[in-house]
C-alpha cells in the first residue's frame, strides 16, 4: 500500500519573523506604518498608488508569477495588493500576522529586480513599493533572520561576513603570495595613496572565494593597472542593509566605502563582479547620502574588463572553446546599461556565445538577488519553486549547445548554482574573470 501523493503545504519557519512579531502591538504597527507611508515617503509613493489602474499588465514581468503557473498572488501588483494597499486602506491598522506575511512577501517573494517597471504602461516602480514594505518591517523588527544577521555584520564590522580587520589583510597577503608563485613580481598594493584605482569587493570574496582576489590581482598586474586596496574597514562594497530597509546602516556602510576611496585619493573605484553592490554604490546608497551620482566614479568589473580589452591592456592567447551563455544581472544591465559591453567582453574571450532568451534588459531574474538568497536556507525552496521559468530558459539555451553559464554577479552566481542543481541542468557556472584569467596572455 502506498499513500496517495499529497502535495504538502510547506510551512516556513523563520525565527526572525516568529520572534519579531511577538514584540508587536497594534499601536506600534500603526505608528511605524504611518511614519513610513506618511512621514518618510512622498510624491512617488502617492503617484504610484493613485495612478495604478489595476490592469495586471505587470504580471508577466515577474518570474515568481510565471513560475507559479500564473498564480495572481505572485504578480507584482498582487504583492502590492497583499501588502501596501491593505496597509494604506486600514491606515496602518493591521495585525502582527499580516506584518509577518508582508515581510515574507516583500523580502522573499520579490527580488526587487525592477523587470516589472518595464512592463507597467505607467512606469510604476513596484520594486520601490516592495522596498518600502521592507522598510516598514525593518522598523518593526520583523526581518528574516539570516539577512538581519548580515545587516548586523555590516553595522558592526562594515563588511557583510563578520570578517575581522586583520583577517582581511591576511587574506589579501595570502592571495598575493599564492599569485607570486605564478607571477613573482605581483603585488596586491595595500593603502597606496594616490593610486588611480581602488579595487573593492564584497565580503564573501575574502570569506570563501579568495581565488577571485587572486584572479583580480593577476588581471590588474598583467594589465599594468595603478591600483590599490584599502587595509581598513570600508573595503567591502556590499550592502544587505539596503535590502532589509535599514537605510541608516546602508548610509554608514556607503559613507565608509566612499570615504576610504577619498582617503586613498583614487580617481575611480573598480568593483568586482557583483550586482547588488553596484546598486548600492551607484543607485541607492549614494542617493541616501545625498549624492545624485556616486561621489567617486564607480566602474563595474564588466565595464573595466571592456576597457582593458579594448585598450589592449589585456590580450587573449586563445579564446575559451566551450560554448557559453550569458546571464544578464538586473543591477548592472537593467540598472547600469552594461548589456552590450558584457557581450563585447564575452565575445572577446569566448569562441561562441549562445544567447538565452529573453536577454539583456528583459532577462529573467536569478531569484537570488534583492537579498532573497541572503534570507537563508528557510527560503531555498521559495527560490527554486519561484524560478522554474529560469530553469526553462537555461534549458532552452543548453539545448542549443551552451555548456557554460556566465553569471557576472555574485548573487546571480549563487542563485543559479542552486537552480542548476535543483533542476539538474548540468551547467558549469563561471564568472567572467574565471574565463578571462584562463585565456589571457600572462608572462610565461
Amino acid at each position: 500500500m502506498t499513500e496517495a501523493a499529497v502535495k504538502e503545504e510547506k510551512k516556513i519557519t523563520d525565527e526572525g519573523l516568529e520572534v519579531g512579531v511577538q514584540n508587536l502591538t497594534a499601536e506600534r504597527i500603526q505608528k511605524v506604518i504611518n511614519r513610513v507611508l506618511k512621514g518618510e515617503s512622498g510624491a512617488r509613493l502617492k503617484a504610484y498608488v493613485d495612478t495604478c489602474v489595476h490592469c495586471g499588465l505587470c504580471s508577466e514581468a515577474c518570474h515568481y508569477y510565471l513560475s507559479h503557473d500564473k498564480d495572481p498572488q505572485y504578480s507584482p501588483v498582487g504583492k502590492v495588493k497583499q501588502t501596501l494597499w491593505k496597509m494604506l486602506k486600514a491606515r496602518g491598522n493591521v495585525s502582527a500576522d499580516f506584518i509577518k506575511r508582508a515581510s515574507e512577501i516583500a523580502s522573499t517573494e520579490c527580488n526587487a529586480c525592477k523587470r516589472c517597471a518595464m512592463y507597467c504602461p505607467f512606469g510604476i516602480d513596484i520594486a520601490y513599493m516592495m522596498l518600502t514594505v521592507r522598510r516598514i518591517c525593518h522598523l518593526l523588527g520583523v526581518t528574516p533572520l539570516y539577512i538581519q544577521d548580515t545587516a548586523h555584520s555590516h553595522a558592526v564590522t562594515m563588511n557583510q561576513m563578520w570578517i575581522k580587520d586583520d583577517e582581511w589583510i591576511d587574506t589579501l597577503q595570502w592571495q598575493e603570495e599564492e599569485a607570486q608563485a605564478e607571477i613573482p613580481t605581483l603585488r596586491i598594493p595595500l593603502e597606496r595613496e594616490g593610486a588611480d584605482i581602488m579595487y573593492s569587493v564584497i565580503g564573501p570574496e575574502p570569506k570563501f572565494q579568495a581565488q577571485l582576489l587572486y584572479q583580480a590581482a593577476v588581471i590588474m598586474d598583467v594589465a599594468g593597472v595603478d591600483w590599490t586596496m584599502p587595509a581598513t574597514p570600508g573595503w567591502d562594497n556590499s550592502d544587505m542593509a539596503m535590502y532589509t530597509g535599514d537605510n541608516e546602516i546602508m548610509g554608514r556602510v556607503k559613507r565608509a566605502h566612499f570615504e576610504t576611496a577619498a582617503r586613498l585619493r583614487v580617481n575611480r573605484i573598480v568593483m568586482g563582479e557583483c550586482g547588488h553592490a553596484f546598486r548600492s554604490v551607484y543607485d541607492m546608497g549614494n542617493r541616501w547620502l545625498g549624492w545624485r551620482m556616486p561621489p567617486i566614479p564607480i566602474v563595474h568589473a564588466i565595464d573595466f574588463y571592456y576597457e582593458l580589452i579594448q585598450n589592449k591592456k589585456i590580450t587573449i592567447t586563445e579564446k575559451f572553446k566551450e560554448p557559453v551563455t550569458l546571464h544578464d544581472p538586473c543591477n548592472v544591465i537593467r540598472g547600469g546599461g552594461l548589456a552590450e559591453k558584457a557581450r563585447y567582453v564575452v565575445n572577446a574571450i569566448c569562441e561562441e556565445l549562445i544567447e538565452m532568451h529573453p536577454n539583456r534588459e528583459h532577462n529573467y531574474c536569478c531569484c537570488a538577488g534583492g537579498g532573497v538568497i541572503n534570507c537563508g536556507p528557510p527560503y531555498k525552496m521559495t527560490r527554486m519553486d519561484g524560478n522554474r521559468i529560469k530553469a526553462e530558459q537555461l534549458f532552452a539555451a543548453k539545448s542549443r549547445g551552451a555548456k557554460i553559464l556566465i553569471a557576472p554577479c555574485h548573487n546571480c552566481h549563487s542563485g543559479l548554482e542552486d537552480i542548476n542543481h535543483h533542476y539538474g541542468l548540468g551547467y558549469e557556472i563561471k564568472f567572467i574573470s574565471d574565463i578571462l584569467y584562463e585565456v589571457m596572455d600572462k608572462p610565461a
Partner: protein
Amino acid sequence: MHSIYNFVSGPLAWLAFILFIGGCLYRLISLMVLVHRKEKFIYSYMSLKYSLRSIFRWSTPFATENMRRHPALTIVAFAFHICLILTPLFLLAHVTLIEESWNLSWWTLPEGLAEIMTLIVVAACVFFLVRRLVNPEVRYVTSVSDYILLAIVAAPFITGFLVYYQWFGYQTLLILHILSGEVMLVAIPFTRLSHMLFAPLTRAYMGSEFGGVRHARDW
C-alpha cells in the same frame, strides 16, 4: 423636466467644469508641492530627452515588449483612449452647443464616424469588463471601485448614443447624458482616472531614471 434640464446643463455643468479643472490643478500642484517638500531630488533626475523618449515610446502602438505580448489589448486600449478623448471634443452636437452659447466653433467629426467612435468606446469598456472578470491576474486586483470607474466612463457614451438616435425618453436620456458626463469630469481628478494627469509624470520619471541613470531601455 425643463427645469432639471436647465439645472444640469447650467449651474451643474459650470460646477463640473470648475471641479474638473480646479481638481486637476489641485492634484498636480499638491503633487509638486509634495515633491518639493520631500523628494526634491526627483527634479535633478528629470531629463526632458529621456522623458519624451519614454512617453513617445509608450504612446506608439506595439513599440514595447508588453504591448506586443497583448496585441488585442493594445489595439483596444489605443482605440479606446483616442476615441474617448476625441469624440466629445469634436462632436458636432457639442460644438454646436458651444457655438450657440459663445459663438465659438471648431472642426467637427463627421456624424457617422463619431457614431463609430462612440461604439468603440462602449465596446472597449465591455472588453475591459470581461477582462476584469475573466483574467485571473486582473480579477485578483480588482475591487468594486474598478467596476464603478468603468461604469462612469461608459455611461456618457452609452447615453450619448441613445440620445443621438432619440429612441426613447429623449428628455430623460439627455439629462442622464449630461449628468454622466459631469460625473466623469469630476471623477477624473479625484479617482484613479487621475492617471490621465499622473501617467505622463510617472512615465517621465521612469524614463529619466532608465535613460539617464540606468542607461537602459524602459520598454
